[in-house]
């Protein structure tokens, strides 16, 4: 045990002095969430504000109809109404972004309204997401106009407006805010934590195995009285610690990111903070720990098998995709933790984290998840030990 601790302490010191490890384990997870939250929320707010404040240029051809609508549109300060533009020119200008919209009324519009028929207005626009707010302003104006026409018609016929809407539907969503949020972000958070666990463990695993082989220091280490199992355990401990450490730091990053952005609605803030309560975090880490052991054993095995740092790097980099895919599947709507998905590594952590956040964890399924994760960790650890005991693999460069 004493030898294992000596090796663990040295490997940890060595790894913490490695810039690549520091970057993937501390800098990236700590900064990613604050940067992501801050930049995306600021960009979203700026874009929304821009779209709201923009004065729309609206082409209008009523053919002498709908004078009240024309007057209402003209009175708006957030729109400039331009009349007399031929349709083709208007279409070209919309495509070229020099006109925001064009409303073309049927020539017989008023007559059709008068005869209680449907009267057509053609609404030309070019909409990408950020222009939707502008488009909606014109649509709102049109809907208000339609409502006024409808009221007039009902008044003329002496009918109550309720005839138009026979049903009075009151929606009552009984899902808690936490459950709704779990569906929205519950898959995304474990996805990131799993990825950080893997990435945090990646560089130390490459450096402590393939790197040492390449430098020849592993050969020297093996000539000391330290047993192979003690050496492996010391290295393994560091790889697991950096993986878990990376996930902890990313959680801290998430907390800091949320604290620093004042634009987050207080209700959402309270819900996210409740996710970050110690019980949820503890459950998350009991899942991440066996998963990280599994990652560490696989990473060390591949790294020990490689002849050089570069070879290990090119073998391990594509493995990131193998981690991303099941974690990503966990993001898909409708994916749930069941007896089958509980057995699939990574996906089971992703889905059970979602269940933990939603507060709807099934103890039996969780038991299955823990069981499978511990089994995978044990098998991969056994594989790693066998590779480390193989003199041909360990000493070849």
């Amino acid at each position, binding site marked *: 045990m004493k*030898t294992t601790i000596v090796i663990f302490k040295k490997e940890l010191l060595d790894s913490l002095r*490695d810039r690549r490890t520091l970057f993937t384990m501390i800098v990236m997870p700590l900064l990613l969430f604050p940067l992501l939250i801050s930049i995306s929320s600021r960009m979203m707010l700026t874009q929304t504000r821009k779209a709201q404040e923009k004065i729309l240029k609206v082409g209008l051809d009523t053919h002498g109809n709908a004078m009240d609508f024309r007057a209402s549109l003209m009175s708006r300060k957030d729109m400039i109404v331009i009349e007399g533009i031929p349709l083709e020119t208007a279409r070209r200008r919309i495509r070229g972004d020099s006109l925001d919209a064009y409303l073309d009324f049927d020539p017989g519009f008023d007559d059709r309204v008068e005869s209680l028929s449907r009267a057509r207005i053609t609404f030309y626009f070019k909409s990408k997401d950020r222009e939707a707010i502008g488009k909606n302003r014109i649509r709102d104006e049109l809907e208000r106009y339609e409502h006024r026409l409808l009221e007039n018609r009902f008044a003329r016929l002496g009918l109550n407006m309720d005839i138009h809407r026979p049903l009075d539907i009151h929606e009552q969503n009984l899902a808690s805010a936490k459950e709704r949020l779990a569906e929205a972000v519950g898959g995304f958070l474990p996805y990131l934590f799993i990825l950080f666990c893997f990435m945090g463990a990646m560089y130390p695993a490459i450096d402590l195995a393939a790197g040492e082989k390449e430098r*020849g*220091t592993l050969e*020297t*280490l093996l*000539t000391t009285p330290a047993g192979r199992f003690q050496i492996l355990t010391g290295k393994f401990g560091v790889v697991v610690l950096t993986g878990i450490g990376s996930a902890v730091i990313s959680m801290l990053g998430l907390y800091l990111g949320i604290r620093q952005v004042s634009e987050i609605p207080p209700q959402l803030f309270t819900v996210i903070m409740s996710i970050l309560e110690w019980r949820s975090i503890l459950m998350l880490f009991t899942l991440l720990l066996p998963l990280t052991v599994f990652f560490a054993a696989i990473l060390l095995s591949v790294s020990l098998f490689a002849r050089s740092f570069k070879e290990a790097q090119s073998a391990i980099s594509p493995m990131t995709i193998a981690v991303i895919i099941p974690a990503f599947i966990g993001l898909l709507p409708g994916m749930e933790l069941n007896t089958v998905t509980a057995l699939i590594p990574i996906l089971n952590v992703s889905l059970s984290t979602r269940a933990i956040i939603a507060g709807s964890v099934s103890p039996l399924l969780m038991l299955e998840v823990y069981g499978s994760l511990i089994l995978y960790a044990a098998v991969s650890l056994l594989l790693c030990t066998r590779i480390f005991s193989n003199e041909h693999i360990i000493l070849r460069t």
Partner: protein
Amino acid sequence: MIEVSGLSKHFPLSREQKKEKGRKALSHKVTAVDNISFQCRPGRIFTLLGPNGAGKTTTLRLIAALLRPDSGSIRVAGYDTQKQAFEVRRRLGFLTGTTRLYERLTPLELVKYYADLYGMEKQRFEKRRDELFDLLDMHEFAGRRIAKLSGGMRQKVSIVRTIIHDPEVMVFDEPTVGLDVLTSQNIITLIRQCREEGKTIIFSTHIMGEVSLLSDDMAVIHEGKLLFNGSFDAFSANMRGKTLEAAFIDLLKEAA
């Protein structure tokens, strides 16, 4: 004392070797060491001379209990390398010319790490460390990261790392390969000093100058087999006026 008896070691063919030999290959194994026996005595320097790929490194790795022999036995300081590997490693110092160091550690940290692995007590370690640092004039750079040290400074750190636990058996695998003259001289001095201290020393080389400079006893190894095993004086007596290099080449030609 190192006693090697009937030692053999085979390795599986590498992918490249399999390609080279094709289907004609009778065996999927290559013999690295083929039934060799020799003894290295305390207070004497035993040189293992051979060309590249002769089996020198494999022999030394077997002695250091890094590899397990397929047949035969090795006793180091009276301990069997297979059955008592821990005892063997406690008494052994291993230095190769190609080994690098942990560049992110300082010499102080690195030497302490190895002393801890050898289970040295604090007082004994500090005394030994100070002696060696004085001897090799290392105090000035002892706290600097190894990555920032020169080749000569690094070699000094390697030497201290190897002998910090004062081993009774020293194994040097081509220790001067790739080093400049001055740094090589440090190694030569170390090997001689180990002899004076009565340690058992085995070192491999393909540099003739080092053989004549250091050897008390020697063995010539080629394709895993020993072509000569005896004292350096006995080898010199058979040279019949030839240079050491010419005698060595003739020996290889005779074996072929």
